[in-house]
């Protein structure tokens, strides 16, 4: 199981807690995890990546194992610790306010 931690507003939208666990078929990559997330929670489609371009929305970033994965290729393997479920994939929104 892959563990994903969502921003607060997306937890509310998907009616889930802080962390969701997903079965991800094949190799664990950012694209595969987001595909599985959107399949399980269709209301999240378009909220993390654009409906058409599939690009990550600009105010969101991906982190895992204290690494910024936001600019990694979407088909690059996620760290082993994420693939094994030892560590979560964090989806974070840019800080609001000033």
């Amino acid at each position, binding site marked *: 199981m892959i563990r994903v931690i969502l921003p607060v507003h997306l937890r509310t939208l998907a009616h889930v807690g802080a962390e969701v666990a997903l079965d991800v078929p094949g190799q664990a990559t950012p694209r595969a995890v987001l595909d599985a997330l959107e399949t399980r929670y269709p*209301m999240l489609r378009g909220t993390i990546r654009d409906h058409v371009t599939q690009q990550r929305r600009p105010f*969101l970033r991906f982190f895992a194992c204290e690494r910024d994965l936001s600019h990694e290729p979407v088909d690059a393997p996620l760290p082993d610790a994420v693939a094994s479920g030892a560590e979560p994939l964090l989806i974070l929104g840019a800080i609001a306010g000033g």
Partner: protein
Amino acid sequence: MSGIRVLVGTRKGAFVLTADGKRKQWDVSGPHFAGWEIYHMKGSPADPDRLYASQTSGWFGQVIQRSCDGGKTWETPGGGVTIEPGQMPKGESNKFVYDATPATGKPLTTHQWYDGTQHPWEFKRVWHLEPSLTDPDTVYAGVEDAGLFRTSDGGKTWQELAGLRGHGTGASWQPGAGGMCLHTILLDPSDPKRLFIAISAAGAFRTDDAGKTWRPINRGLRSQYIPDPNAEVGHCVHRIALHRSRPKVLFMQKHWDVMRSEDAGESWHEVSGNLPTDFGFVIDVHAHEPDTIYVVPIKSDSEHYPPEGKLRVYRSRTGGDEWEALTKGLPQRDCYVNVLRDAMAVDSLDSCGVYFGTTGGQVYMSADAGDSWSPIVRDLPAVLSVEVQTLR
């Protein structure tokens, strides 16, 4: 027993205010969708328990919410949790994609940017949702960058009426300071094929064939802030309104100027009359008196607050030109709020109720057509929109 339901969209969530027909005691429900911008909520005239809401975020984009029980519970249409393994994801209710097929018109890929260069059309958010007068599952959505979408399956999927962007002037449309938004959608109750829409800063447009073809209806508008003050398009229309008994008569609050048309927008003439300033955003019509209209004058395009710090609704009982200030119950000193374009509405009880929300978080109501006012709530987040349902 009649009742009133006021749907309030704010910068940080939605609120539903309800009262019985006396309009004295109000229940406040919310915030719904806390922390999200709710640009607009509106109920279906065909089924008052069917509500639609535009929920948006700079982080997470556009979400459409629907309620089938008058706002007690909400769902993302077609976007529920997928339970069965292998089931295809839906989630199309949030998907607004501009039509790029030549079969539906002449879809454009660019419009004019602030600096006059061409800029790609980019979907940002839904500003206004207008449910059909007869079918709870059919809703029109006005979006930024300006376009018109429609659902006929209760919000599960949305299709663009591409004839609007493709009718010929789209490449010259330009955003106003608030973005290039399609913010007003009026359905003609006497002709289901006729719709009026308005765009900042392009102007007003009309279709007479249910959205297939469109044309600008801006003759008579004069805007000193554009290169050709009498141009066919480019006017910053802030809001238009009509009375259902007389849908050819239109009223408009433009960036500057309050305007009136007698002929479904074929021509306009100014009715600003004795207003202290003719800048403003909202305009609305009394539920039972088609020549009684309301505006909230704002000082100027660079000072978005009431003149002299006095919050005054102005009412004309003559369809414009002659205006009276309505001040009883409204702050008459040190008031520097704005009233945005979708933030005024009326109920249809015998004594017409008028409602408006401010960027200071107040929602004011008058149960006597504007003669006196009182706040329903004072401390909401900045109000973006107010709609009213009269429940019988």
